Structure formats: structure tokens, C-alpha cells
């Protein structure tokens, strides 16, 4: 293999440092035995202990988990259907309609959803947040599912019908098992997107409803406490885990070496 020039290495190291050093600092200071994020004093699990007895924080985490689970379930069902529709019917408008919410600025989504809920006299709370999350997660699931369908042999569905399967059975026994890695990857993506969404949640939660990102935001208004570092570390760990699982299940999402070398 050809040697790469040193400046390329330097640029790469700088870029990765810029991305990951801040995260690393948060992790490190979550174990720091000091109220200030200024200097390293000593190792402690105290902040995690404080976290475990913080009712407000636990309530926020519970809400986020519940919303995340409901959102990933509903948007996976709807997103899979959307992905199938995009694959089967070559309508030009359909992909735009489904995928647009991904590209629309979150602030715009948040404001418009808020206006929409108010117009409908819909009480803001956990339900409105979940609905808003579902709205932007469908597109992500649809894209992953469609990518999986594109790699599937079309005659397999015909073969299933030929073997006596109704369209529903053909989907259940042949299409769904084959696109399952994409479906699961989509569900995990929806979950991580939902659990750490701030902007749209901020607009659609209303007063009194709290989720984890909202809670963290309200805490850092005063100062970044080590407790915030601790909860951020846990959130980071969860997200990382889900990304790894998603990548394992859907090689097209993150091509591994096995796919790149024939």
C-alpha cells in the first residue's frame, strides 16, 4: 500500500480529536471528586449515586425511555410500510414526502408542530412529544428498510405467491425475515433519535413535561454540574451500544471490512 503523506494523518488526528476529546472530557469529569469541571481532584462514583437518588432526573429518564420505546415501535411499523411503498411504487413524490422531515430544520418542525397541536386543541405532554418524534423518525426507518429491499431478489416474493402464499403470508414468511436486519436497525435508529432529541421535544412538551435532554438543559442553565456529566456519560453509552448493534445488523449502514474486500 502507498504511504499516505504526514499532513493527511495530522488532519485526520485533528478532526477526530475535535470530535471525541470533548466527549472524553465529559466522561472523565463524571468521575471527578469535585463540584467544578476545572481540575482533577480524585476518582469517585458519587455523582452516579446522586443521580440514582434524583427523583426529577429519574422521572425524566423514565419519560424518555417510554417515549423512545413507543416511538421506535410505531415509527418502525409505519416506516417499514413507507419503505415498502417507496420500493414497490415508483412515484416521484412519495420519497420526497417521506424523507423531507429528515431534511427540514428541527426548529421549523418544532415550531410548526407546536402551532399544529395548539390549533387542534391538543394537550401538550408525553403524547404530543411521542407523535412529533414519530413524525421525523418514519423517514429514517423508511430509508434503511428501502436500502435493504433494494438488495432483495424480486422473484422471491413471486416465488412465495407461486408456492401458495397470499400477499400477507408472502410478506410475513419471506419478505419480512429478509428485510429484518434493516427493520431492526431502523428501530434502533428511531430509538436513539427519540431519546436524545431536544429541539422538537422542547416545543412540543409543554409546561411540566420533562424528558432527559430537557432536564439536562435546565440543569446546565446554572452550571455544568458533575451530575450532568454522569447522566451524559450514561446516555452516550446507551447510544453507542445501539449504534454498534444497528451496524452489526445492517452491514449497509456501516460497511465492515468483510463487505469491502471480495
Amino acid at each position, binding site marked *: 500500500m502507498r504511504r499516505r503523506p504526514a499532513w493527511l494523518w495530522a488532519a485526520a488526528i485533528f478532526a477526530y480529536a475535535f470530535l471525541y476529546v470533548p466527549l472524553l472530557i465529559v466522561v472523565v469529569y463524571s468521575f471527578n471528586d469535585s463540584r467544578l469541571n476545572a481540575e482533577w481532584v480524585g476518582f469517585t462514583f458519587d455523582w452516579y449515586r446522586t443521580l440514582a437518588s434524583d427523583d426529577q432526573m429519574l422521572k425524566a429518564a423514565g419519560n424518555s425511555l417510554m417515549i423512545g420505546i413507543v416511538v421506535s415501535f410505531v415509527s418502525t411499523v409505519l416506516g417499514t410500510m413507507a419503505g415498502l411503498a417507496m420500493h414497490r411504487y415508483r412515484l416521484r413524490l412519495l420519497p420526497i414526502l417521506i424523507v423531507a422531515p429528515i431534511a427540514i430544520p428541527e426548529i421549523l418542525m418544532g415550531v410548526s408542530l407546536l402551532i399544529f397541536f395548539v390549533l387542534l386543541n391538543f394537550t401538550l405532554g408525553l403524547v404530543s412529544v411521542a407523535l412529533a418524534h414519530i413524525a421525523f423518525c418514519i423517514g429514517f426507518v423508511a430509508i434503511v428498510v428501502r436500502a435493504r429491499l433494494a438488495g432483495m*431478489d424480486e*422473484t*422471491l416474493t*413471486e*416465488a*412465495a*405467491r*407461486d*408456492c*401458495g*402464499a*397470499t400477499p400477507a*403470508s408472502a410478506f410475513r*414468511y*419471506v419478505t419480512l*425475515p*429478509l428485510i429484518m436486519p434493516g427493520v431492526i436497525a431502523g428501530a434502533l435508529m428511531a430509538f436513539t433519535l427519540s431519546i436524545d432529541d431536544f429541539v422538537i421535544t422542547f416545543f412540543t412538551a409543554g409546561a411540566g413535561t420533562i424528558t432527559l435532554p430537557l432536564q439536562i438543559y435546565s440543569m446546565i442553565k446554572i452550571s455544568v454540574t458533575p451530575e450532568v456529566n454522569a447522566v451524559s456519560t450514561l446516555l452516550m453509552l446507551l447510544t453507542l451500544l445501539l449504534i454498534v448493534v444497528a451496524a452489526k445488523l445492517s452491514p449497509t449502514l456501516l460497511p465492515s471490512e468483510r463487505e469491502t474486500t471480495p
Partner: protein
Amino acid sequence: MALLDIQGVTRRFGDFTAVDNVSLAVEAGEFFTLLGPSGCGKTTLLRMIAGFDLPDAGRILLNGEDLADSPPELRPVRTVFQSYALFPHMSVEGNVAFPLQMARVPSGERKARIEAALEDVRLQGFNRRYPHELSGGQKQRVAIARALVTHPTMLLLDEPLAALDAKLREDLSIELINLQKEVGIAFVYVTHDQTEALALSHRIAVMNRGRIEQLDEPSKIYGFPRTRFVADFIGHCNLFSGPIREANGSLALVDVDGLGPVRVATATSAAGGARGTIALRPEKIRIAAEAPSGTPDNHFHGAVRDLLYMGDVTVYRVAIEGGTIVEALLANSQSGRAKFFEVGDAVDVSWPVGAGHFIVE
């Protein structure tokens, strides 16, 4: 009543007419082949029988029943796809069991049925293998077992051997013939390979541009092609065309362009002035260094322009003085004897009136 009755079926895709007013009947137990070049409509017709596509006009009847309103899963026919279309997430047994499962065959009965189907295609003991662990030929056997396991009325085979190499294709052809005899159900077989079609079929429908050019037994298709297209598509054929001088119902005389007058036996009569074509198989032509004894019906002189040694036979392309190329074939039955003539040798070609086949255009 025929098992499958196709009546005036037409299928258009935009401006393109894929199947153009086709009618044919397939009898029970018959090995029927749709033969033609790609784009001739044979696969579209097969897909309409399977139910993956619907005719724009005409009817398809199976056992006298119109299939128009039956989705694929309710038609008692099964398809064997060119790409095998095995379910990759199921084992061999899972694949073969799938139609039984869909037909709600009690699970106690399934095992025996699966074993019998795998035995039919000589794949016993492969139950636990997955499609990606099988060779092309084995995959195709599994596909056939899956299609046969529910005892369908008819099997539709869409170029099932096209993806296999030549030797395997020949072996599987023979197995297909035996299998069809054994199970006794009608096969409708689609192929672009004329050798396959001639070897396998009871009857062949030669298709071109969405129409049936000729529907006959293999020997009739080969020996008595009704159109120029059929003569040219099936095997090697010399095609001599020119104005008909006379055709009186037993003998025709054609002034072949670039060759001269050629006599050919015919049952048809045609007015002088119309154009006719004589289809002449290379193996029916006598090629020799000297003129034959007696007076042959058709007799020309020329020189060997090029030759193709094929092992069992050698094909000689002879340039006649008029400029026409005549293809003749000699068997190399004498061992060690590779060829009888060299390029440039002066040769004499001749054939009796009965050797050629007359087609009025």
C-alpha cells in the same frame, strides 16, 4: 378438452405488443415448449399462466376454468424460476415444506411428502443445507422439488437450465425428461435454446415478436419449418430465396439469387413470380470431390472457402460460382480423419429434391 387452453391472448406494454393474439392448447401429461429469441413474448406468456401478469385480451383456461380472477396462489400451477428463487433464509427442507405449509397440509404428513419430493430430484440427505451451500444444479433441483411437492396440475419452467454450464445442462435435461415421465404432469417449458427444446419436448411452439410462428413436434419443426424465421432459428440452415418459376403441388422450381435454378419437392402450389425460400439442412447436402454418378436433382460446383472442425463433424462453407455460400456438413466417423477437404479445394455439392423444404413467402 385440453388441460391448458390459451385463447387469443394479447399483452401490451405501452406501444410494445409482447404477446400478440396467441392461441394454443397443452394436453395433460405433455412436455410443451415455448421457444424463441429473447423478447419474443415467451416469458410474458408463461407469467400470465402463472398469474404474475394478466392478459389485456383473450382468456387462459385451466381444466376449462377461466383463470382471470385467480391470483397466483390459487392457481394449481407451479413455477421453476431461472434464478431458482430459493428462500435464502430457509433450509432445503424449509423451502420444500413452504408450499405444504401454505396449503395447510398437516405437519405429520409433511415429512413424507418432503422426502418423496427430494427423492424425485435425487437430493435425499440435503434437508439441513442452506441454498448458499448448494451448487447451481442442486439449487435448481430444490426449486423443482419445491414446485412438485404439492402435486400441481402443471409445472411452468422459465429457462431453468440457462444459468448452468453445458455438461450439467445435458445431464439435467435427461433428468427432466425422466422426471416428467415419472410424475406425469404437464410441463410448460420456456427456452431460447433450440437444442434443449428439440431434445425435451413433445411439442414446440416457436415464437417470434409475440406470435407463434409454428407449433409442431420437434422433428416437424426441424424438418419442415413453415417460415423462414423457424428455419433460421432452429439449427443451421441454408436459406435460398428467389422468384418462383413454377410450383405445381409436387415440385417447385426457384430461381435462387446468386445460385441458379433449384428444384425442391413441395405439397404447396404457388403462382409464378411470387418469392419462395428453400430451407436446406447442411447434413442433407452431398459434398464430394467428383460429381456423383447419375444425374442429381440439384448440382453445383464451388470451392471450400472456410471450414470449422467440430470434432464429431466438420462444417464446410463452399463458395458456389454464382457467389452464394452453401454450408455442408460431413461426419468425421473415421477415427483419425479430421477433414476430407482443405480450404481452396474444388468440390461438388448436390442434393435431391426431397432434401430441401419449400417455404412460400
